[in-house]
């Protein structure tokens, strides 16, 4: 599958997309999940997030997708600063979380056709996406009737229906059987070879080579109180 980014600052296929993070910090309630997080990622590269449950992997992925605002720090997409609303980056991103993001009442094809149209992809990619994840047999079944593994493959199919440079995958191998995991690895490698990028939070090895980032290195050692402006007189 040729990958060609649609609306994109530099529209050439081999775009030099880069994602940089400086001193990112994320707070949950009274506590910092991580702080002072820096990383940089260019096209054709993969970043694998490690760390125990609750160390902030999902929060970091949602932050990169522009679904939440960082407590501190700044994100740069292709060198341009990303505003807190995530505008400019959100349109370049796919986020595959734990829930399928599909309507249970609709069939697999209806769901994917909607996402193709909504996310600015092309409906002619539908067949190729179903084929890539071995979903042709289930195409007309309502997503609600599918197993967790099958639903996971449908949400992964959305990555192919509307091509975007940056994939954010949150434990994508969950509920996938072994040969589907190979299929996933193949998809990621093809995406990356075509100039795409990916940030993947995973516990199981994916068989793709990429830089590792362990969120435990960025936990503040002292359980420092999250900086709540209304606590300023605690210093």
């Amino acid at each position, binding site marked *: 599958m040729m990958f060609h980014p649609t609306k994109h600052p530099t529209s050439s296929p081999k775009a030099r997309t880069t994602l940089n993070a400086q001193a990112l910090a994320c707070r949950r309630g009274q506590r910092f999940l991580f702080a002072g997080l820096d990383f940089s990622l260019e096209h054709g590269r993969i970043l694998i997030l490690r760390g125990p449950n609750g160390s902030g992997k999902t929060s970091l992925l*949602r932050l990169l997708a522009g679904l939440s605002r960082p407590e501190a720090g700044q994100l740069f997409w292709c060198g341009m600063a990303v505003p807190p609303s995530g505008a400019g980056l959100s*349109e370049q991103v796919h986020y595959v979380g734990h829930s399928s993001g599909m309507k249970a009442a609709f069939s697999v094809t209806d769901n994917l056709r909607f996402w193709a*149209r909504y996310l600015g992809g092309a409906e002619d990619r539908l067949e190729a996406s179903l084929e890539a994840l071995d979903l042709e047999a289930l195409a007309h079944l309502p997503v609600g009737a599918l197993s967790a593994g099958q639903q996971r493959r449908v949400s992964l199919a959305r990555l192919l229906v509307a091509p975007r440079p940056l994939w954010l995958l949150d434990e994508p191998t969950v509920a996938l059987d072994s040969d589907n995991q190979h299929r996933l690895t193949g998809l990621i490698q093809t995406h990356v070879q075509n100039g795409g990028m990916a940030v993947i939070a995973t516990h199981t090895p994916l068989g793709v080579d990429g830089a590792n980032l362990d969120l435990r290195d960025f936990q503040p050692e002292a359980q420092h109180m999250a900086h709540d402006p209304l606590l300023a007189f605690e210093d």
Partner: protein
Amino acid sequence: MLAAFFSLILRDMRLGYAQGGAAGLVIAFYAITISLFPFGVGPDAEILARIAGGVLWIAALLAALLSLDRMFQADFEDGSLDSLTLGPLPLSLVALAKALAHWLSMLLPLVILSPLFGLMLHLDGASMRVVLIALLVGTPALSLIGAAAAALAVAVRRGGALIALLVLPLYIPTLIFGVGAVEAVSGLGSVSANMSFLGSLSLIFAVLGPLAAGGALRLALE
């Protein structure tokens, strides 16, 4: 951008009528609520005719309230709200699209059926037409400002009951001018004045509702 907007409206409308969709329930609720009134105030034609406008409007308000809860909650629970945010539309336009889809799938059928229920309430021909137009012009406001309350309720996780408290005070102007238009037929005030207020309410809320809903949805995503 526009294609995404309309595809979202179409999807939500189809959702309303798909298996598990609430559209059918809302219409049934509207019918049952209206038919309760004669049991309450008595079958006397003269009384029913006088309060018919109020009955039709209050039933429409409650029907809208009933269906607001699912406007964003379903998308929040199955994760599609995340992907909708990553689409080309800003969150306020997503809210506008969903509010319009809610109006088209949930409230428009009520408006079309209202003359039928008007008959049950001995409404005369002239007021029947006015009620139909008033509902057509005024009910969009219910979905539009309702979207803001529904979005706030999503951020609260189990906020369904909260919606009624948040939105009913804001429905009062629509109710006043809606019923006012019907009563104007029998000489109490002017129909066109009430209609123009009703229409302006829908327009004001067409801006205010989605803006507030967009902000509230961003809260829910955090």
